[in-house]
């Protein structure tokens, strides 16, 4: 984690220090007359977060002729350093990278807004690549029918459970959300140290509210958002969470918390993204091999098809400010990091977003042999993408609002209903503050 200390000059606040940097570029803040597209003659600059550095290195190896500058950026999800740099680039009218891996998926919202318009429209630039994606996987990049980014990995939620624990105690894996809630309470009553979910991370919103189809991130147009926490879909999610929380089955910690591993080894089941398997269970919480397994997402009672959230699944963007050879090389880079097995299959930890190479990646699971039921996990992964409920990345940071309101409210003694109410109120406030009309 990189942080820089702000110069604590006299009273002008930190923002002013940065704002005054803008003056010397001779541009007034907020001016966004689209600058001319430029061509460097071939050299490109790409920004990647630490886990994506191997992708850029693999590209350098594959295309030694293309001159490339790789800049490693702060990869904190919900971080502001990249957002800050781009606000300055947009004000100055220069300085953008030619391609970028966005540290947070929410970044695509400002990158496609009319005040920045950084992300190039790839619809006509890379039609063959776009063809290879399941539209559900690429829906997050679809803005008013134009594809503005490409997905590094698909991150739909599946339903994870500890198969060894279930077999040992004779529990049946739930198939509906309601069964999951009741079983969670039952397990905690019989095994007080076991838990069935985490609430305190930025993806909690996706795991439960998005999976219920609750309109928190419903983009009506560029300046209108539909937020309604009293929608029946939100109420069923709130009820489910209240049942589990009151039964002691939910942790207020988040999956990324430094001290969450102690609770993590006691997780017996939970909806969670496909990358939980390798990243959380195997590498972070060190759960032994042969225990965890996944099944397809759960279904809400009274519905015929399963519903799931989506947790991350990184986005690559290409600059709209370049043309000619520089643009060609940036597109070559974007194509490589999204579709080439040399990165996606051999090195990447997440399920590729690009369809044609998913099977090759899934085959790797057999060689690794970590999961309890590998064929089951493979089919769950494949089935999950189509179950993801619609969700748009907005200029307000839903995940941050969630972490600031839900767990803190519960920790200070509030009920689950209080927590969701606090979340809804803050979300509407944030949305209006950023400039949305909330319906």
């Amino acid at each position, binding site marked *: *984690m990189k*942080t820089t*200390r702000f110069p*604590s*000059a*006299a*009273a*002008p*606040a*930190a*923002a*002013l*220090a*940065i*704002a*005054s940097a*803008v*003056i010397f570029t001779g541009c*007034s*803040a*907020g001016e*966004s007359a689209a600058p001319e597209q430029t061509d460097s003659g071939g050299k490109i600059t790409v920004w990647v977060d630490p886990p994506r550095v191997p992708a850029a290195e693999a590209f350098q190896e594959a295309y030694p002729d293309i001159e490339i500058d790789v800049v490693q950026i702060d990869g904190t999800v*919900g971080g*502001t350093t990249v*957002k*800050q740099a781009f*606000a300055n680039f*947009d*004000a100055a009218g220069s300085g953008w990278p030619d391609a970028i891996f966005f540290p947070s998926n929410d970044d695509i919202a*400002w990158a496609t*807004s*009319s*005040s*920045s318009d950084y992300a190039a429209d790839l619809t006509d630039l890379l039609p063959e690549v776009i063809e290879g994606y399941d539209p559900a996987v690429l829906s997050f990049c679809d803005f008013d029918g134009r594809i503005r980014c490409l997905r590094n990995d698909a991150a739909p939620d599946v339903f994870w459970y500890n198969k060894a624990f279930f077999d040992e105690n004779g529990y049946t894996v739930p198939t509906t959300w309601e069964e999951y809630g009741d079983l969670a309470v039952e397990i905690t009553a019989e095994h007080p140290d076991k838990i069935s979910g985490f609430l*305190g*991370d*930025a993806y909690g919103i996706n795991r439960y509210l998005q999976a219920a189809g609750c309109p928190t991130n419903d983009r009506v147009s*560029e*300046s209108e958002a539909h937020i309604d926490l009293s929608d029946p879909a939100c109420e069923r999610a709130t009820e489910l969470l209240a049942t589990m929380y009151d039964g002691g089955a939910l942790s*207020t*910690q*988040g999956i*990324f*918390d*430094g*001290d969450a591993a*102690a609770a993590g080894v006691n997780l017996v089941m939970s909806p969670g993204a496909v990358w939980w398997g390798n990243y959380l269970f195997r590498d972070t919480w060190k759960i032994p091999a042969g225990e965890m397994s996944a099944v397809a997402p759960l279904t809400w009672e009274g519905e015929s098809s399963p519903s799931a959230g989506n947790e991350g699944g990184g986005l690559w963007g290409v600059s709209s400010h370049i043309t000619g050879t520089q643009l060609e090389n940036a597109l070559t880079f974007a194509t490589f990091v999204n579709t080439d097995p040399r990165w996606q299959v051999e090195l990447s930890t997440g399920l590729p977003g690009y369809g044609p190479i998913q099977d090759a990646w899934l085959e790797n699971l057999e060689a690794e042999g970590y999961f309890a039921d590998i064929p089951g996990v493979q089919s769950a992964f494949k089935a999950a993408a189509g179950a993801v409920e619609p969700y748009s990345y907005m*200029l307000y*940071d839903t*995940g941050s609002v969630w*972490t*600031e309101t839900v*767990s*803190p409210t519960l*920790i*200070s003694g509030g009920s689950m209903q209080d927590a969701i109410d606090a979340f809804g109120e803050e979300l509407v*406030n944030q949305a209006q*503050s*950023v*400039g949305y009309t909330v319906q």
Partner: protein
Amino acid sequence: MTTATVKDERTTQQPAPGSRRDAAKRKAPHRAETRGAYVLLAPYILLFLVAAAIPIGYAFWISMQKAPTLVNPETGFGGFDSFITVVTDYRFFATFVNIFTVMIIWLPIMIFGVVGMALLIHASPGRFGGAMRFVYYIPGALAGIANFVLWVYLLNPAQSPIAFLWLDLGMTNLKEVVTTQNLPLILTAMLFFQGLGTWIVIVNGGLNGIPDEIYEAAALDGANAWQLAWRVKLPLIRPWIGYTALMNLAYGFQLFLEPYLMRQISAGSIDSEWAPTQLGYAFAFTNRNFPAAAAMSIILLVITLAIGMVIVFRSGLFGEAKERAR
């Protein structure tokens, strides 16, 4: 801010007996002296212009621009609209309540702590006093980030040497300790230990500047150690106390780093716009509203300047008291 004013006409005022310094000051200075004064002032004036006056003027100009919105990124002259945007923001008053809560808890503890410790050290003669001064300085010698990391360990029930304290309070993990409600107390503790040593050294410098004759006179009048501290030393170091209060207040108002990092270590359970400076930052980089960010910094400037003025004039920071203490 003080600026040297130079009088041209001779003063006809008779100096009061026993105040030779005043007389010297009121004498018309020679031309060379005037020039010298300007030469000596020049670097300060230059830095003041570059680092304060011009940025403030620029910020004011920016704050008068029309804020671009999502759908209409046009700019122009907007008058005081941005100030209205800032003041009517739903977080504006909350951030000031937060920062004042910290100030009300932290500043008195800081001032009492610093002055009390400095007086105790000053009253401890010889090697012991010197040794203690060094011991107190140690936490202050930790740079900001190191101090912060130390506190991250102290606050985490999983690692802390004072974990029993957290567990007794029913807090089992970091998220339960680092909450928005607890933040004022956590910041108070952090800032106190970080600043204590440095400020003891500064106030002690003021105490060392008191001439021995005064102590002799007090001893002749029969003052005991307590009276010496309370009635003699304390009034004489008032400017130093004022300076301590002023600088800490200015620092406190600009708190940014601590709440920002606290949010990071608590994995997002602290409000992201907890302090006014963070709200200004959010205006600039979340809302892309530079005029509002500039307006926020102007508002902060006015408030800190006003409070600073009060402290300067109440404590005689730049007044005669300083001269007397020399």
